[in-house]
């Protein structure tokens, strides 16, 4: 049950091997048993989950079940869910019960999925190790001395430790893909605008994109079918025909041109990761693909560009957390300015404050052109690099992260080292293009390694096909730490 694919669970529910209530109860028990060690969940609400399971059982009995009906999904605590504590990993929202559902939550509810709990995350999604959460760090289930990655660290841990069949994440600079890689699971960040941002607490609006995290590409496709779609409440949501992301999974890969950016195979990548990538490429060649070297000359600028634009947007997005209407408010203050100061000084953690300061600085009078405008120009150049590269190849591959999971505490004192964890991932957010990570083996200390698969706009179905074909001939995605 805990290792079953979504398709298997759905079949077993339909065949009445077990009910959704039983399935949900099993996972809730497993969370109760293992979460104290991993800290993957911030909130578990058995009553609400079981009420949903009961409703799902009725849908199944009435023959109205869809592919996800009755299946528990762990929701990142960045998605507002009606009646649920929604903290975004911050003390600032430690008392915020959302009065409304995010677009993504609505879609899962309509599909009859069960919200099995809200997963831990870096505070306001700012981090690559899940160490900035107000609710404490999450452990990597492969090695509890290691970080799970971030910001969707709780989600990655929950799926890897089989505390949930699948999970949602959000990705602003790599927050789905990097923890997926570090925890040995699969995750995809879709093209910007495919998944509604309504009710997804904003970090950097032009970069944020929700996406699924699961054990396999096949599961990701099913989840993406539910999560994507136009939402009129999000002005950046794309209006396009619904796509079936499962339909191309079985296509053969013969003739596939895999682009290998020379900039990504340069210094910085550790040897164990390089070895695993090399083995994976051999596998793909066996499947009929060929590799071509491509160049993304501006891609190495992704990190500096990202660390101008993301904090700029964040500094403004996080202004609403002022203690006036909801959320944390300092208990004593002398006047209005003092209330703002104390509330925000106490309510936000150090990394969030650092990024608010950076963002405020780059938007300030006299610095705006040199930082923000310049970064926007480079952002366009980076996108042009990718568009040009996709004339020579169908897909781009490389490592998701430069190393396997690092140790808890190892980089938390060095923000620049931490920011470099996203060196390969942040470009996809800047371009808005889809990208995913799948497990391809183990490196140092037997910690997982992820393959980064990047595609042009709206190439999700093809990317899932490429990942699935690999998972048909390998079993890395079936390995579980517990």
């Amino acid at each position: 049950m805990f290792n079953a694919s979504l398709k298997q669970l759905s079949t077993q529910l339909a065949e009445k091997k077990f009910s959704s209530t039983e399935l949900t109860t099993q996972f809730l028990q497993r969370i109760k048993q293992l979460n104290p060690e991993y800290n993957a969940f911030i909130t578990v609400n058995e009553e609400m989950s079981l009420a949903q399971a009961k409703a799902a059982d009725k849908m199944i009995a009435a023959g109205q079940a869809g592919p996800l009906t009755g299946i528990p999904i762990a929701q990142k605590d960045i998605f507002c869910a009606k009646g649920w504590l929604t903290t975004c990993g911050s003390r600032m929202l430690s008392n915020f019960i959302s009065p409304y559902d995010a677009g993504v939550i609505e879609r899962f509810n309509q599909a009859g999925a069960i919200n099995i709990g809200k997963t831990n995350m870096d505070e306001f999604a700012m981090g690559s190790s899940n160490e900035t959460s107000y609710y404490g760090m999450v452990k990597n289930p492969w090695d509890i001395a290691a970080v799970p990655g971030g910001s969707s660290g709780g989600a990655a841990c929950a799926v890897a430790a089989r505390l949930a069949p699948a999970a949602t994440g959000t990705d602003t600079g790599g927050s789905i893909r990097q923890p997926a890689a570090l925890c040995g699971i699969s995750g995809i960040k879709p093209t910007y605008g495919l998944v509604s941002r309504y009710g997804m607490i904003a970090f950097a609006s032009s970069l944020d994109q929700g996406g699924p995290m699961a054990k396999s590409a096949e599961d990701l496709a099913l989840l993406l079918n539910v999560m994507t779609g136009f939402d009129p409440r999000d002005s950046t949501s794309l209006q396009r025909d619904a796509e079936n992301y499962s339909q191309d999974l079985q296509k053969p890969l013969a003739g596939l041109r895999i682009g290998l950016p020379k900039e990504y195979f340069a210094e910085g990548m550790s040897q164990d990761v390089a070895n695993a990538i090399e083995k994976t490429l051999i596998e793909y060649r066996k499947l009929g693909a060929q590799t071509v070297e491509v160049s993304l000359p501006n891609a190495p600028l992704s990190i500096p560009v990202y660390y101008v634009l993301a904090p700029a947007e964040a500094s403004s997005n996080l202004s609403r957390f002022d203690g006036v209407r909801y959320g944390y408010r300092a208990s004593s203050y002398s006047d209005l300015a003092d209330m703002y100061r104390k509330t925000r000084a106490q309510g936000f953690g150090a990394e969030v404050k650092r990024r608010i300061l950076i963002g405020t600085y780059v938007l300030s009078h006299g610095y705006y052109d040199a930082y923000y405008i310049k970064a926007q120009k480079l952002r366009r150049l980076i996108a042009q690099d990718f568009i040009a590269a996709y004339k020579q190849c169908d897909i781009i591959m490389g490592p998701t992260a430069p190393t396997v999971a690092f140790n808890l505490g190892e980089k938390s004192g060095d923000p620049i080292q931490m920011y470099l964890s996203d060196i390969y991932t942040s470009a996809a957010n800047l371009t808005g293009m889809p990208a995913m990570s799948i497990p391809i083996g183990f490196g140092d200390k037997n910690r997982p390694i992820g393959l980064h698969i990047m595609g042009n706009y709206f190439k999700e179905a093809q990317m899932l096909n490429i990942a699935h074909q690999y998972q048909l001939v390998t079993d890395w995605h079936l390995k579980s730490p517990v």
Partner: protein
Amino acid sequence: MQWEIVIGLEVHAQLSTQSKIFSGASTAYGAPPNTQACVIDLALPGVLPVLNKGAVERAIRFGLSVGAKINSPSIFARKNYFYPDLPKGYQISQYELPVVQGGSIQIQMDGADKNIRLTRAHLEEDAGKSLHEDFHGMSGIDLNRAGTPLLEIVSEPDMRSSAEAVAYAKTLHALVRWIGICDGNMQEGSFRCDANVSVRPRGTEKLGTRCEIKNLNSFRFLEKAIDYEARRQIEILEDGGAIRQETRLYDASKDETRTMRTKEDANDYRYFPDPDLLPLEIPASWIDQVRSALPELPQVRRDRYMSEFALSAYDASVLTSSRETADYFESTIRQLPAQEKLCANWIMGEISGQLNKEGLEISACPITPSQLATLLKRISDGTISGKAAKTVFESMWNGELEKNVDAIIAAKGLKQISDDSAIEKLVDQVLAANAQQVTDYRNGKEKAFNSLVGQIMKATHGKANPAQVNVILKKKLEG
């Protein structure tokens, strides 16, 4: 030294949409606090703005009415600052690329036209209200107004006196109501003015340091605040001082302006394009559609009244001061062709006098254009005198006899005696009874004539047609 005052105005016109600019909550005025603030207006975590097309359509309407350029795309930007009634910690506004660029407004000063250029007009959302009373030393926040659509209309510094500034504000006020984009209610804050005032030695080009005066919610306050501020600046300069650039607040109770904040403690708003809203593209077809639905503009109508009906510039301006008044005038003259001046006089005289007295808008006038036309027809066809018409008008205003003009004339016996032979008989009687005055007149005492007319009118209780009386009397006396 002779000083010249230089004024530019920033006007915030609240757009008359049903719902807010970025949410579906109602914009109706006067609801209990926070009952018209949805999750978006409250800036809950995760909510996003969606632009109200009605607000954009109104901005286009305005732009076309002032001959401005409609920018496409235009960009929404965030203006970042902290205040408790600003829920997101930023206001969504437009900064570098506003929806409306340029254009101008013509004002009339002492019978001459003057052109006031517009810099721009941009869309933005209003903030909520902080309430400092009734909360025992604390402040209350009402977010009903948060997210209400505003069009900020910025003029060039083209005005040279408080009178010009008031004329501009009034013309703009009439225009936004005329084209139906703003109800213009100044008490409710639907039309708010800020004035940028500076002074310079007459004859020089360089602009002086300006102060911005806020909180001018009536035309009278606008005038007084500018006058006060100009005097203040001139006094400082004449004493050898320098003007400090600052924002000042007008205090109506003391009739003075005082410092609100100086340039040094002004916020750095850190404007940047709002990533939650795409650039606003306005297709040419939409602009054409809005253009074809625009009403005839006040300026155009005013000119037409002058050329087509030979009305004076003053009359034409008064009649086009609001669309309702102009429409009232036009529907009256449609039923009474070739009597435009008579209609104009009555609308500007009796009608407007009564409306003012009772504090009514012309839309609430108890006498319809067709009822007025019927009444005026009775003057022009000689049935009643102008004086009697005023009596009929009063009865109609009070709703007597179902406002039936002829019934009121009959009931009150106001019909004029217009029969020549009947008047001649009367004249003969009066002449016979006043031999002395006849003699006086014939001896050159012109005044005696008026006295005789008075006698005749008295004898008929004012009903004799005065023009006819004049003609017949003159004939008899001189014949």
